[in-house]
């Protein structure tokens, strides 16, 4: 056993195993080490965190201060995690880069599966511990390790003074490990391991400051809401096993087309998978946990709740593209839930004042876009938006982290207990934090869909594909897709509005922090602004790797001069080809014009101009609004504003109609079923036994004569019985 694990570890570090796809020239370079490095980082940081925690506990027991991280304890609890945490990420990113480079060089037709050992074997069902390397997992690995590395670096600055510094990096490394298992696992079972693992890390990191009841509760909420989705994932996996007797990706997709197109089984499988995706990717109606998840440290929000974990649902749908393509109902559901969520979350974001809440609802909204993309069969577009979103949303979160960091310091220095996250307390920060301001504007323009930033290409591609899909000859619900398209366009405008509003409230206008505090505001340290700059560059130019075919020859696509046009689309082709084939056979050619006429170029120009106009108008109107700091804000919100500010009262509705009934039912089970019926029965049995025992013990008089008498009566009864 132990030696087996040891041998596996050696195999891992040597990139061992054998490539399943014969003839592929792609030679994986230490893929196991990509996964193993963050795990090692977790172990190292975890040991440091444990030692650190024990030392503090000893200090408290000895009557000392509860000192989790004074300057004196820095060497072991600060320097080592500082190097280990981002260090393992750098290592993983470099190995991923090497693999990416090698994969670029060959045209990989089939996924390369690297087997390590058999994880479980029960009868005919076996699951291997195997990593699958293909174009999709490679893109995800690049995002996770690349963006993850930047966020780790940012965290060094952001979490510098936190007492739980080593614990933070331990959790973060563990998260990356599980996320890599999620995207690299070669089967749904292994994916589920990562799926649950990232859920755990999300819970641990949301509740990182668990001493605060509200934050601990937010962690629990995320964990519990995710469980609902996980049930769906599990059921889908069971159905998959029932249908194919395996849950490995390669054989499942190879045999998928034996299922009837649009059949009940494939629809059930995909809908249950989508339920899992809805939970993990915070779509309606299970999105409620993500805004609360902002209770965690801001880099965590950037990494887990914007760039990586929440996109796992999109990855799941993209990975299962063959299955989803086989079920038009499920695909329409995916797109519909995505479109509704995109609009719904965007409207809530309009009235939020907490900078992280705005970004949280924005994330929910953007995830909706990704689901629209994968729902209309534009899997490459969905993954494309996933990637660009990872860049600009990570940047936005990190930027907001830098702002919160500065605000927190300012309030801390004057000992004022104001909300460091409320935008009403900010304003005019441009003067104090120019780099943050500039980089965040890049991200804002990107998310708003302004040409030539990354978000323009990815979002526009999704919107266009929605229209094109609805216009296909055999499209199942053409009107529905037209509605999705309109919703997507409307949500794009809302996005431009609320993001610009956030920027204006935070960075422009007059400063509302307070005079003494304003003096303390400062730009973020280098460990924080360098990642911002890198992400800003990616947000600005990342979109050019996938300029849609139709517009690459227009001025929007650089008149065909740019060589990377449709690169991502072609890159993912081997994986999406089967799904596209199914789609083409059953639905026919996609439409080349939007529902109300006009080609892709026209609508792309229209949308980016409209977004630009919205941005400019917002700068004017919000800039002119009189905004007052939280302490002085006495505005009573009414009507729609109140409805949006209170997030449509969804949390209250859930509380009233789901949480409270469950609590009531639990209370009933506890007070009545358990305490009365079950305990009552048990107690009654006990009491009856006791009573009978007490009654019978009356015969135990201690008098030999009585015993003799009873004995004689017994003899008489036996003799008498023999009479009859």
């Amino acid at each position, binding site marked *: 056993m132990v030696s087996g694990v040891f041998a596996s570890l050696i195999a891992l570090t040597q990139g061992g195993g054998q490539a399943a796809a014969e003839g592929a020239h792609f030679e994986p370079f230490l893929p196991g080490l990509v996964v193993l490095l963050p795990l090692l980082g977790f172990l190292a940081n975890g040991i440091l965190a444990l030692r650190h925690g024990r030392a503090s506990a000893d200090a408290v027991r000895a009557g000392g201060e509860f000192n989790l991280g004074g300057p004196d304890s820095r060497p072991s609890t600060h320097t080592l995690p500082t190097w280990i945490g981002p260090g393992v990420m750098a290592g993983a990113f470099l190995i991923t880069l090497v693999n990416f480079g090698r994969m670029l060089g060959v045209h990989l037709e089939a996924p390369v599966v690297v087997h390590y050992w058999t994880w479980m074997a029960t009868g005919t069902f076996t699951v291997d511990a195997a990593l699958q390397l293909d174009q999709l997992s490679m893109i995800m690995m690049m995002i996770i390790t690349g963006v993850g590395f930047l966020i780790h670096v940012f965290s060094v600055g952001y979490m510098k003074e936190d007492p739980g510094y080593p614990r933070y990096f331990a959790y973060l490394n563990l998260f990356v490990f599980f996320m890599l298992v999620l995207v690299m696992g070669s089967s749904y079972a292994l994916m589920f391991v990562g799926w649950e693992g990232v859920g755990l890390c999300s819970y641990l990191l949301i509740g990182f400051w668990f001493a605060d009841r509200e934050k601990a509760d937010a962690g629990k909420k995320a964990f519990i809401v995710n469980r609902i989705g996980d049930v769906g994932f599990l059921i889908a996996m069971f159905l998959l096993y029932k249908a194919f007797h395996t849950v490995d990706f390669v054989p499942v997709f190879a045999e998928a087309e034996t299922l009837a197109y649009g059949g009940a089984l494939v629809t059930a499988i995909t809908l249950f998978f989508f339920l899992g995706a809805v939970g993990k990717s915070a779509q309606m109606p299970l999105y409620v946990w993500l805004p609360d998840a902002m209770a965690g440290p801001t880099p965590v929000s950037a990494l887990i709740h914007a760039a990586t974990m929440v996109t796992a649902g999109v990855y799941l749908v993209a990975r299962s593209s063959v299955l989803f393509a086989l079920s038009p109902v499920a695909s329409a559901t995916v797109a519909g839930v995505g479109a509704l969520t995109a609009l719904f979350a965007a409207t809530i974001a309009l009235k939020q004042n907490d900078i992280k809440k705005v970004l949280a609802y924005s994330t929910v909204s953007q995830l909706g876009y990704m689901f629209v993309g994968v729902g209309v069969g534009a899997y490459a577009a969905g993954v494309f938006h996933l990637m660009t979103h990872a860049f600009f949303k990570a940047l936005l979160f990190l930027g907001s982290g830098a702002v919160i960091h500065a605000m927190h310091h300012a309030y801390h220095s004057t000992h004022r207990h104001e909300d460091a996250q409320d935008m009403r307390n900010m304003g005019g920060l441009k003067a104090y934090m120019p780099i943050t301001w500039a980089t965040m504007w890049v991200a804002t323009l990107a998310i708003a869909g302004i040409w030539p930033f990354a978000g323009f290409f990815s979002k526009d591609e999704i919107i266009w594909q929605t229209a094109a899909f609805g216009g296909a000859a055999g499209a199942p619900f053409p009107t529905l897709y037209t509605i999705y398209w309109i919703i997507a366009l409307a949500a794009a405008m809302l996005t431009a509005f609320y993001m610009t509003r956030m920027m204006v409230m935070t960075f422009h206008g007059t400063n509302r922090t307070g005079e003494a505090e304003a003096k303390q505001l400062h730009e973020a340290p280098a460990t924080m602004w360098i990642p911002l700059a890198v992400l800003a560059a990616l947000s600005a130019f990342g979109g050019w790797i996938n300029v849609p075919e139709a517009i690459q020859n227009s001025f929007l696509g650089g008149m065909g001069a740019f060589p990377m046009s449709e690169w991502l689309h072609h890159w993912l082709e081997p994986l999406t080809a089967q799904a596209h084939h199914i789609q083409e056979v059953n639905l026919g050619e996609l439409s080349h014009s939007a529902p109300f006429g006009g080609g892709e170029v026209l609508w792309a120009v229209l949308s980016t101009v409209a977004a630009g106009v919205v941005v400019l108008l917002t700068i004017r109107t919000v800039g002119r609004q009189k905004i007052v700091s939280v302490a002085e804000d006495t505005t009573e919100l009414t009507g729609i504003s109140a409805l949006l500010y209170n997030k449509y009262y969804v949390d209250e509705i859930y509380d009233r109609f789901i949480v409270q009934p469950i609590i009531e039912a639990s209370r009933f089970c506890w007070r009545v079923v358990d305490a009365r019926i079950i305990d009552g029965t048990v107690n009654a049995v006990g009491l009856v036994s006791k009573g009978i025992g*007490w009654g019978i*013990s009356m015969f135990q008089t*201690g008098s030999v004569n009585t015993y003799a*008498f009873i004995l004689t009566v017994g003899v008489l009864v036996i003799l008498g019985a023999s009479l009859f």
Partner: protein
Amino acid sequence: MITEALVLSAILFVIGTFGFLVRRNAIIMFLCVELQLNAVNLSFVAFSRMWGIDGQIFVFFVMTVAAAEAAVGLAIIISIFRHYETVNVDSFNLLKW
């Protein structure tokens, strides 16, 4: 004559039982048990007139058992007496509810 012997046996057994029930002196109770045993012995002997020598042999064994029982029983009475200074069974009521 066999019937008469059986009647006598029944009478002796009943008297023994009655004595066992109403006397409180452990030794007398013991004697009453012996009386019951003897009553049964008598019926065995009587039946041996009908069914053969086996009845008598059974009586032989009963006597042996009675001897063993008397030895052990009296030893127990002696040790109880050492403790309680009496053989009145109403005094030995430690084992009750």
